Structures are given as C-alpha cells and as structure tokens.
C-alpha cells in the first residue's frame, strides 16, 4: 500500500465519519446520531464504508429511518458502497448522550437524563415513584412533578412544571 493511498483512505474515512456524525435522529432532530450515542463506528473494509449503529430501545421504530438517512447522506457525499450494521452489544445507555447533545435537548425544551442506574446483582423492585432531581427546561424551576414514566417516544418520561405549569419531556435514564 502506497503512502498516497493510505493518506487518501484516511481522508475518506474522516470525511465519511463527519458526514455520518452529522445525520440527525428522526424523532429528536435537534440531536445528531453521534450526540445521541447511537453511532458506534465508521470503518472502511475493501471498498465498502461500514457504519455501525445501536438501537436505543429494542422496539425503537426509528432504526430503519436512521439506516436510510445514513445511506442517503453518505451516497450524496460520494460514497457509493455503504453498509449499515446494527450492533446490539454493548447495550445503549443514556450516559452515551454527549454534553453537546444534552445542551441541545435542554435548549429544545427536553430535560436531559441524569446518570444511568448501574445494576450489580439482582434488579431491585421499586414500588415508590422514581424521584429525580431535575429542572423545568423552560423556566428552570426545580418544582416539577412526574406525570408518567412513559412518554411519546420509548426513551422519554412525561413531567409537568409546578411553577410555570408547562408539561415537558425527560429522557429516561437507562
């Protein structure tokens, strides 16, 4: 392999990485797939650009759209041969949302997740409502109430602010 070829390969790879990293999540378009932590890897094998993503939840209905968006955007950028792979391991964690992603969520009125629980030993049954320390993304008040642990997408819980009375969504810790 010549030095020129290696340099060209490295250039293509870094260009493909930045294209893939700029594709946004179909359900939370303020986040890129990189910010959300679902973009796991971009690599070149032979002539094929292989992009690896991981689902947030098992039933995440956005996976097909993410795959299509990645393929379209990379093809538009001149990469003809693109393959999107799904990686199930390690399982996605809300801890993988980047600091930039957390800021983008808050800017758009969605409360970012706290630290994900780490289970050592059996998962403890919790019969009391989950208490999170979080602030209303609109008015900043910490006087908030959980409406439901399940929201409009698999990854969100529903809250309302007791001060400004607005409802808001919170990305669940997982």
């Amino acid at each position, binding site marked *: 392999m010549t030095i020129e070829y290696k340099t060209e390969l490295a250039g293509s790879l870094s260009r493909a990485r930045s294209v893939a990293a700029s594709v*946004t999540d*179909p359900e939370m*378009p*303020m986040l890129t797939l990189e910010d959300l932590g679902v973009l796991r890897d971009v690599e070149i094998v032979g002539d094929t650009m292989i992009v*690896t993503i991981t*689902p947030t*939840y*098992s*039933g*995440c*209905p*956005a*996976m*097909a*759209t993410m*795959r*299509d*968006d990645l393929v*379209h955007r990379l093809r538009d950028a001149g990469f003809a041969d693109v*393959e*999107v*792979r*799904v*990686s*199930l*391991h*390690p*399982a*996605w964690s809300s801890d993988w949302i980047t600091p930039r992603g957390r800021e983008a969520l808050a800017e*758009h009125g969605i409360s970012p997740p706290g630290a994900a*629980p780490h*289970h050592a030993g*059996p*998962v403890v*049954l*919790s*019969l*009391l*409502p*989950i208490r999170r320390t979080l602030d209303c993304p609109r008015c900043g008040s910490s006087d908030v109430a959980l*409406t*439901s*642990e*399940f*929201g*409009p997408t*698999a990854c969100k819980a*529903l809250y309302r602010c007791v001060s400004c009375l607005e409802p808001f969504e919170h990305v*669940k810790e*997982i």
Partner: protein
Amino acid sequence: MDMNTPDPSHLPDDASVYDEGLLVSDDSQWAFGTDFEDPLAGVDTTVPDGVDTHELAIYCLMLADDALVMSHRLSQWCSNAPDLEEDIALANIALDLLGQARLLLARAAAADPSVVPALPDGSPVPPEDALAFFRGDREFRNVRLVEADNGDFAMTIARLLLFSTWRLALFERLAASRDHVLSAVAVKGVKEMTYHRDYAGRWFLTLARGTDESRRRLVAGLEATWPLHAELFTTHRAELVTSESGVGVDPAAVADEVDVLLEQVFSMSGVDRPEVAPLAGVRGETGRDGLHTEAFSRLLAEMQVVARAHPMGSW
C-alpha cells in the same frame, strides 16, 4: 385557505426544530413505504459450539412468542385505557416487547431456518414476519398466561406484574448466555423491563390500597390470572436442553426469586396470595407444547388476517 390552517411559510424565526423535520418532510422520513429491515442486519448470528441449533430456535420462539402475544394484548388497550397516560404507558411497554419479539424471531430463523413456515415462491415476507403471521396456533410456543383476554385494567396490571417479574428474572440470567445474540437481547431487555415491572408493581399497590372497588377488581383480576402462573416455572425440553448447553435459562431456576418479589408486592398491598388451582393442560401439554386456550385462536385470527390475505404483500 382556511384561516385556521397554519401556513408554514409564515413560521416565526424561532420556530421549533421539529417543523422542518416533521411537517415539511420528504417521504424518506417515514417508516411507511420503506422496506422492512432485518432487525439483526449486521449482527453475527453464528451459533456457539456444542449447541443444538433446532432446540436453540425453539427456545428463541418461546421467548419471542411470549413477548409478541403479550405485546399484542397490551396494544389492544390503545385508545381504551383509563386515561391518556396509561394508554401511552401500555403502548410503550407493548413496543419494547415487540422489539424483543422481532429480534428473537429473527434469531430463531437464523439458528434453524426449518422453523420458518414456507411461503409462495417469490414472497417478499421476511422470516420474522413469516413466523409471526403464518404459523398456526399449534406452532406458537408462548405460555398461556399472555394469551388470556385482557379483562379490565386491574386484571391487565395483575398479569403484567406476574409476566414482567418472571421475564425480568429470566433475562437477568439470560444475559450470561453463551449465545451472544440472546445475551445482547437480554441485557437490553433487563433495562426495559425494569420499568415495566416497577410500573405494574406501583399500579398493583395503588389499586390494592385505593378504593373498595379498585381493590375488588384487583383481587378478582389476580385470582383470574393465577391459574396460569404455575406454568411459567415448568421446564420444557427446549428450555432444559438449551440451559444445559449454556445458552438458555431453565425457568424452574427463577421460581424462588420471583416468589419472593411477588410476596413483597402482595404484602405491601395487603393482598393474599390466591389459592386457585393451576389450569390443567391436555395430556400434560400446555402453551410451550403449542397447546393453547380458545382466546388464543381469536387473538391470532385478528393479528394474522391481513398478512395471511396477502402472502405476496410488500409493506
């Protein structure tokens, strides 16, 4: 133009990020019209050494069918739940389980393609759909607990508590499976089902400690569900064989743990463990053997009718 219809060209400068993505969108933004994807695309589905591929496939079908049928029952609450929040919660739980079912059906098909029903030549139906929509009732391996009618909200909560406590305990062990697809599905499932079990447990407690009527309904729902509880811990051959080869979990091994957890909920709720006899099988056969109740045939008819009418259909 109707005065009430917003004109997108007049959106203010600070319009939401959703506007462009969701309101003014090309078709590729929508799941409809795009091909079904293989949920295991790009995942290494090699079967570990020393594992019987047929028994592994049957085991995957058992776990998949439990999730698929439970998901279908829960989704029947859509637009029927007591309030909007519970409607959304039950639909979310159904979606998580449907995701698990898709992965497990695809894993079954990859482990042993002979379990997938034959379709006409050229049919575009992928193996996971062929398994979900083109098998008859005798070929489904789910436990009978998941197929019973929903009953009221209290009965649905009682069943969800039994189901999610049991399945979470199984998946906590399945995370150590030598089959890395099963292991990955289990690790993810544990995170999801922790929310499901907590949800069911909290509603169980709330209904039990609520009004006389909510308590009456909960106790009745638990008693109606309980005859199908024992079957969850009865070991079937495929479960035994796969647990011996380190890929599956013997459900009998989680019986004590599940019992302790349920006791915790029952005692906090002031509800007695029901004393109702288990529902018998036929000649010893139950759900895992493909022997189901009448409610299951009606469920399957509804779930499968459209797919079966269009075996060459592309969705």
